[in-house]
């Protein structure tokens, strides 16, 4: 990709440079730069910094990288674009600022995509997460026909109306970086600077793991165990939320929303694995999604009773 016009940064040279530029850009816009959530999630939206913090009246601005897993998307490292483990970049701002689109376009310029030379378009895409009981309206953002981000104004999470509304941006980092770097196969993409003494490409780091997890997800994962774990996570989530709000040890008001929500995240990922193993029929599918949604709703309800959720301290 040749150097772009004025006002646009020079093209980055590596995957990590794309990430670092997004981090500094959004830090400069006032976002708290958080670290990835330390659990297996299907998308950045599952990070409690998004799901839970979108609820309640308190202003919020955060940005972070979130490793994400979609077991059914495994292609043994062969497919140029599809991975069962990939990275998303999330930005969440509440209330959504009036210039959110301009801020977003600024982030594209920061990674070397000049809207005067590329075709950037906002194409209708309503977002819905049946497992989170959440939905919003927005777009997928296309750059030269490539979907580079998801742009959503959250309307509901966990069955609750979002007021104020959060603006959420999700960048598919590999796809976006491949485009910026002019790489056709994800495994060929420079991860660090190709001029360094030990240049590493994406494939050097992830080709083997993609193979291993593809085999695991499609054929090896123990479905009986997954089912047991699913039920255990479901029960634990409910148990934690059912505990009395007053902690016996300290006498404080402590609702265990986040530990319970961890179990919801777990259940969701276990469901995705079961789905990849092909043991969930079409009718059962809906039932499982409904069970995870019930957990997410319960967590959302509980969050709204906490200080972070806007309840009077």
């Amino acid at each position, binding site marked *: 990709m040749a150097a772009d016009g004025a006002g646009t940064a020079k093209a980055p040279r590596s995957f990590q440079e794309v990430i670092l530029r997004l981090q500094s850009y959004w830090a400069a816009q006032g976002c708290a730069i958080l670290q990835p959530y330390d659990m297996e999630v299907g998308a950045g939206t599952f990070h409690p910094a998004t799901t839970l913090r979108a609820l309640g009246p308190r202003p919020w601005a955060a940005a972070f990288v979130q490793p994400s897993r979609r077991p059914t998307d495994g292609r043994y490292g062969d497919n140029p*674009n599809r991975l069962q483990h990939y990275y998303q970049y999330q930005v969440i701002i509440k209330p959504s600022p009036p210039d959110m689109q301009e801020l977003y376009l600024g982030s594209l310029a920061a990674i070397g995509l000049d809207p*005067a*030379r590329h*075709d*950037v378009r906002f194409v209708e895409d309503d977002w819905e997460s049946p497992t989170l009981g959440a939905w919003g309206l927005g777009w997928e953002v296309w750059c030269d*026909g*490539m979907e580079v981000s998801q742009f959503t104004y959250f309307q509901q999470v966990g069955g609750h109306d979002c*007021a104020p509304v959060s603006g959420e941006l999700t960048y598919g980092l590999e796809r976006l970086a491949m485009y910026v770097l002019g790489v056709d196969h994800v495994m060929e993409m420079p991860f660090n600077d190709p001029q360094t003494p030990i240049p590493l490409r994406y494939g050097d780091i992830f080709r083997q793991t993609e193979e291993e997890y593809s085999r695991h997800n499609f054929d090896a994962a123990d479905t009986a165990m997954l089912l047991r774990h699913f039920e255990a996570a479901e029960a634990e989530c409910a148990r934690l939320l059912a505990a009395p709000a007053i902690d016996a040890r300290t006498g404080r008001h402590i609702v265990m929303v986040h530990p319970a929500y961890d179990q919801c995240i777990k259940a969701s990922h276990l469901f995705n694995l079961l789905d990849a193993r092909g043991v969930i*029929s079409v009718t059962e599918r809906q039932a499982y999604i409904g069970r995870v949604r019930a957990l997410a709703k319960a967590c959302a309800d509980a969050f709204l009773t906490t200080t972070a959720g806007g309840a009077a301290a």
Partner: protein
Amino acid sequence: MAELLIELFSEEIPARMQPRAREDLRRLVTDGLVARGLTYGQAAAFSTPRRLALVLGDVAERSPTLIEERKGPRTDAPEAAIEGFLRATGVARADLIVRDEKKAQVYFARIERPGRPAAEIVAEVLAEVVRGFPWPKSMRWGAGTLRWVRPLHTILCILSGPAGAEIVPVVVEGIAAGDTTAGHRFMAPARFRVAGFEDYARKLAAAKVVLDHDRRAGQIAADAETMAFARGLAVVPDAALLAEVAGLVEWPVVLMGAIAPEFLDLPPEVLQTSMREHQKFFSARDASGRITHFVTVANVETEDRGAPILAGNARVLAARLSDARFFWEKDLRVAKTGMAEWAEGLGAVTFHNLLGSQADRVGRIAKLAAQIAPMVGADPAAAEHAARIAKLDLRSAMVGEFPELQGVMGRYYALAAGEPAEIADAARDHWAPRGAEDAVPTAPVSVAMALADRLDTLTGFWSIGETPTGSKDPFALRRAALGVIRIVLANGVRLGLRQIVGAGRGDDLLAFFHDRLKVHLREQGVRHDVIDAVLALPGSDDLALVVARAGALGAFLGTEDGGNLVQGFRRANNILTQAEAKDGVEYSFGPDARLAQVPEEAALFAALDAAEAAIAPAMAAEDFAAAMRAMAALRAPVDAFFEAVQINTDNAVVRRNRLNLLHRIRAVCAGVADLGRIEG
């Protein structure tokens, strides 16, 4: 007279919602103005991805002053009633008018509603329209409460006349109307002032915005065609895609690129579907019909004539098509081993929780297809086999990705599995007709399979009581029935539906078929009463037979004899019905020719004998024209009979015999049609 210009400027409006939104804006604003007495001349609405605009010409300066007189209580009514009237009308007591009514003096209030300036009315209407706009889906944003399809940023609202333009003073949830707008998001983002519609459209064009959606669509179509023609190609027409793409850009820039050679051996349907669904690309084909190029529409003009844009789009397409090729190759491997894996997989897919799995359904369709096969000239074994093959692509990766390719892929995979052409064709063609425009299958195996598929769906849902009601038809059963009707009629299939749909609920289903048949034939100009007239005959579960009878009857009714016979029949029927009601008996005892009093009466006996003798064999031979001719021959004798005799004579024996004779007219005609159903 003034001109009103409104622009609602927002973040990107979904393309599919723009046509309705234009119409809603026009309708709601004009209705609102008219309801408040403000008249206008012409109206036109426009949309781009970022704006909805409306211009009204010849808008009145003010609404007219209206004077209303309202009648109140009598002058001697209780004080409370009079005060109430004053409060309700807002008129002072001194201004009340007293009129003499019949018995007393009555108060009248003269209420003058002064006309209001246009700006005041427009402000009121626009605020109401914005707050209540009927978007199919709307949202809130930031900390606000207003709902719009996407965040609404600015409102332009001006009334302009010879004296210049004035901003209509309206504020909707903090957004105050102004007289400025912005151009293209990237090429001309600066805001500018607007003095009227002409100025608006001209400045927008200079700011790289084509306001009129139809012009954008026309420009895209013309540019694409020119570009394709230059390369010896033709663009595959796609009106829905064109409308959508025109709603995605403010400044269309058409670009054409080549599909990488390694994808050209993918089926053309796959290429076209993948390009349309994922990328909103048009397809361009060469003289041999092969799709070799794509057409994309950008929203921006660049210095390098779109080179990076085109290159980017080509790369995205390559990624998409390599996915499609992954599915294709994966599916072909399964297909080449005979598709057993998919057959097994159908057992795991629920069709409906009360109707079993897709595998159960395939089993039923196979049996039914074998049963129907002989009636459509197909080999029962082939039809049964086709049914077992035709639904397998449901389990293929390609159909999982592109459900609309179901059937098309089924044919390719069946061929790859080594199935004969007629089986493979049935996998594709049994889905037809999918819509009103779609042709029906004609190959015997496809026809058997197509009928079996739909009849199984209909009998299945009927058996569990899931029948269409009103506008609700979640399983598209009306379409399934119409499909059966079209296939049967187009192929002249002789099929007694009763033996398939069974008794009991089957009668209800048969009535459903008859209703759909009437709707279908009405669209083709056949009168519903003509169909009703033949439905009473035996064999009405054979739709082709019903239509043949209706056709012959319709033609007969168009003749002079036909029309007159119906008159005669009706007269006979009326007299008979009245007599039967009055006498409390049924005059169905055969009349006696020996009791005929006059030659005309005797002639009618002879004519009825002759008609009856001719009608029965003609009907049996399905020579409906001959049956009609035989019935037509009754016209003159019936007319002459009514001319010559009085039915209700004093002679009871003669009267009874004549009534029995009338009954015989009805009975003889009933062998051809129930003429009593004919209207008008």
